């Protein structure tokens, strides 16, 4: 006579089930509470695997951006320092330039010129030490693609007088990085084929041009860069590896009679090291007799210069290549300091001014590059901060709880749990046994 009804409940089972439901609600409530207190939607990756991975990736990106930015700050500070250093160097060269101009004053005595040379020499040391400046981490600022700790070595007794101990070239900017060094070779060194920096000295029989006669030259003009390139390579391959051969022209003949009205100068040419083929031994220049300006001399391959004044027998012209701004300054110090008379001083001043200008143009080009890099750093910083905000919001979207929604959910659950507890307690009170007495 058992009563089989579809809605029959086992008392113990009903209690068990209600209890399990209550426990589930409690667990949900506890999870929500944990989320609210930690501020995280995801407390375990299994809550939302995609979100967890997204948050993890965003965190990685954020750390990456921070590290990129830290590296960029180091690079920027180095470049800023390098730019400032180039500014200091330009200032020093400007002062030197003024001193050189003043040395051209015809009223100055040799002693006064020696004093000026001394001042230039002091500034030269400053330029050299500035060029070897290192950044806060001890890296040379002008290391180019890599260099010794002191990239500019010199002066040295053997050729070349100054050496760039490094790898010329400029590092490219990357998407999130700029180079930390500037190309010191490009800034301070002079390549014959690229820049054509030469120093010309005139003299006579081992001394200066005698007083009363004037003979100067203008500066070297490059007539054929290809020849210069070839010759420079040949010179670099010889012992001592000078940047370019030096030339000495000695006037060993002044012929005014063979062709009337035309003067022909004959020189003996010495090339050191001798690399040209055929070997340079002699050369001639002809000009209308009586010309005192712009007498062209084109006997050296790829180069030319003009005489100003009156060339005479046993006059010598020494053409020395200058491989760097430092060598230019060195020859300025020597030539101005040792100029015995106004003629020698004029020659030295003219040479130095032109060469200095060439060198300063190079420095200013590299300084412009530094300015570009600093701009680039600025824009990368902006990009980085935007990326950071983006990733931060990705991360937040993926794992942070929406507080409003969270609290509302919590309240809902709380109400539900309360209702469940109350109904459970009330149903528990109901029993037929209560009515049997």
């Amino acid at each position, binding site marked *: 006579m058992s009563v089989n009804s579809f809605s*029959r*409940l086992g008392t*113990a*089972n009903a209690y068990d089930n209600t209890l399990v439901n209550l426990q589930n609600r409690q667990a949900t409530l506890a999870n929500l509470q944990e989320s609210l207190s930690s501020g995280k939607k995801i407390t375990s990756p299994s809550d*939302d695997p995609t979100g967890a991975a997204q948050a993890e990736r965003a965190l*990685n990106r954020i750390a990456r951006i921070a*590290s990129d930015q830290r590296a960029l700050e180091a690079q920027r500070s180095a470049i800023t320092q390098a730019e400032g250093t180039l500014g200091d160097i330009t200032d020093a060269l400007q002062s030197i330039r003024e001193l050189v101009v003043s040395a051209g004053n015809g009223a100055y005595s040799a002693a006064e010129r020696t004093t000026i040379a001394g001042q230039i020499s002091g500034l030269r040391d400053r330029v050299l030490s500035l060029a070897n400046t290192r950044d806060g981490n001890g*890296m*040379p600022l002008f290391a180019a693609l890599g260099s010794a700790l002191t990239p500019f070595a010199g002066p040295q007794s053997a050729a070349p007088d100054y050496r760039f101990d490094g790898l010329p070239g400029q590092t490219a*900017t990357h998407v999130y990085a700029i180079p930390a060094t500037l190309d010191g070779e490009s800034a301070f060194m002079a390549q014959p084929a690229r820049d054509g920096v030469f120093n010309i000295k005139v003299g006579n029989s081992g001394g200066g041009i005698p007083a009363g006669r004037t003979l100067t030259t203008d500066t070297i003009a490059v007539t054929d860069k290809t020849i210069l390139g070839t010759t420079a390579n040949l010179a670099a391959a010889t012992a001592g590896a000078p940047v370019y051969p030096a030339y000495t022209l000695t006037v060993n003949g002044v012929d005014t009679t063979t062709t009337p009205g035309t003067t022909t100068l004959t020189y003996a040419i010495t090339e050191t090291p001798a690399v040209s083929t055929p070997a340079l031994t002699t050369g001639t220049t002809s000009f209308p007799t009586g010309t005192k300006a712009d007498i062209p001399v084109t006997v050296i391959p790829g180069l030319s210069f003009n005489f100003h004044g009156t060339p005479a027998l046993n006059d010598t012209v020494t053409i020395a290549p200058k491989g760097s701004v430092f060598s230019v300054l060195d020859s300025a110090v020597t030539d101005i300091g040792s100029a015995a008379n106004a003629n020698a001083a004029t020659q030295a001043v003219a040479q130095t001014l032109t060469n200095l200008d060439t060198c300063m143009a190079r420095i200013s080009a590299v300084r412009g590059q530094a300015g570009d890099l600093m701009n680039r750093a600025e824009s990368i910083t902006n990009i980085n901060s935007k990326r950071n905000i983006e990733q931060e919001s990705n991360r937040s979207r993926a794992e942070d709880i929406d507080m409003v929604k969270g609290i509302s959910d919590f309240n809902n659950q709380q109400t539900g749990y309360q209702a469940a507890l109350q109904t459970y307690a009330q149903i528990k009170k109901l029993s037929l046994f209560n009515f049997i007495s």
Partner: protein
Amino acid sequence: MGILNIGTLALQANQVALQTTGNNIANVNTPGYSRQTVQTQALPGQYTGAGYIGKGVSVESITRSYDAFLNRQSSLAGASQAADTVRAEHLKQLGTLFQGGAEGLGAAINDMMNAFSDVASTPADQTARTVLLTRLDEAARRMQAGAASLNDLQSGVTQGLNEKVANVNTLAKNIADLNDQVARALGSGQTPNDLLDRRDQLIRDLSKLVQTSQIAAPDGSIGVFIGASHPLVLGNSAATVAITGDDFGDPFKSKLSITRDGTTIVLDENYPPGGEINGMLKFQNEDMTEARNLLGRITTAVTTAINDQHKLGLDLDGKVGTNLFTPVTFGSDNIRVPMAPANLNSANAGAGSLTMAISDVTRFVASDYEISFSSATAGSAVRRSDGVATSFTFTPGSTTPPATRGTFTFAGTGTGVIDGLALDASTSAAPVAGDRFLLKPFSYAANSMAREFSTPRALAVANPVAATLTATNKGSLALSGIAAQTQASTAASPIDNFSVTFTVGAGGTSYSIVDNTIPNIPVGANIVVASQPYTSGQAIRYTPAGAPGFALTLSGQPASGDSVTVKQNSFTSQNGGNATAMMNLRDVAMFDGAALTDGYAGMISTLGVRAQSADYSAQVSTNIAVNAEKDRAGLSGVNLDEEAAKLLQYQQAYQASAKMIQIAQSIFETLLQGLGR
């Protein structure tokens, strides 16, 4: 005197009914108790001329409310629930071992990779170097910690399995005993309700541990079967189950086996899948294995890539870099052969042995592999994670000089490399059909991962090669990157003096590579690579025969005649080129196409998805189990209100019966008084 008799019988019957109701109330909370009901029947009447006069009531039997179908449903659903829940719980634990965020392995790996950036900025800075070493150590430690927590979890699982197996054996024995008792009790003609309830409850308990099917025997005993119908209990005899290793003695996997009459059979945990033991086995054999492989893959790929790159660099003393991390090597743990209790053949018949090496860390798949030979020269490799089979041909090695090793050629790649793992065999390898090998490339990698040295000076962050842009270049070339390609064995890289020269022509810009150490006689004799098209930002690679190569990346446009010289780096102390190269490993697509930095995110999401889906299954099967149990309890369970009503009902009947006796007595008295007059 009929009424007295009927009254007495009624009293007795109702008393039994009251007692049974009381028993129901008493057992309201007893698990597995089925409520009992008294079945009464009217006694045959006495024939008179007026018809049959009823002779009262008797208790025919006491039956339990029981439905075999509902019982079986509940026990089956309970088995599924137990399996799914235990697996979900374990996966949840596994998930907590590999958390995201700053404390995770991913953050450690990323911090380490980012630390290379600081060293690249300041190569000579001892602080940056020391920080990098600390980060390397931290990453290695977290890899090891990951492996250690997996091992802890594994030992917990092993212990749990052993306890559960002991439980199964006890339960099986108890069921067998009960079978015996039930069979004897049934002999009496009445059903022993409580014994049956107890046996059903034991079977239900057993099903929670391992899914069973039951067949009732005519003698009242129940045969209990597990796995693919392997008898665990037959009549009064019980077989024993045990945990055994898999075919290859893989220490991270196990199987349930059953031994009856000296014969052991290994069961598959997936057929049928119910019961806690199967759930745990599935967790151990599939989920744990995947977690181990994922961790091992990250460990192997990241440390190998860093080691390889580090060996391309030079340290502060100009020495070639050594391993930064413990190098991952493969031994007999990683290449396993079948061993007892392998089902088919207990050992390989051939004498072959395999060797495995890392070929390409970017192609790794987090999986074990099974190599099986279908003949001495062919077979297939099955990737266990997804079951993809790759067939191969095998060329046996030769022991006669010059000795050669046995080589594999995989279909598709044409090489002996499968998923970045290079395989070959010893010279004496002579496989026969049926030989099998299990490759576990990633299971052990993280166990002993450590940083190899702690000398900041020995960090080889300098580039062995350097590039020089010719000072007289007229174009806008700038150096994006220069890197060594392969490793010089001991000393600094002997790469020396190659020039890359550019020609701009009508057909675009092209480059040639000139070896400056070769005299240019006749003209062009020193050109080693002629006229290749140049693209800004694309690496120019060259590896001379028998010497390390280089990869040169330039940006900008060259002018005709511009050149770049590549030579040995003579300024290593100020160079962080190799640190940059290591830092750039961050973006190498390494884990199924994801970048190195995102490998860990992939791992936690893979494990998270597993945990999530296991959680869903557990919820579903719990609901099903709850409903099935509700249905069973609806029929068999005690309802107190019902019993209260019955109490009243039987109490009234009992009181009525007593009244009957009282009336019989008063009739008798009336009769006696009448006689006495």
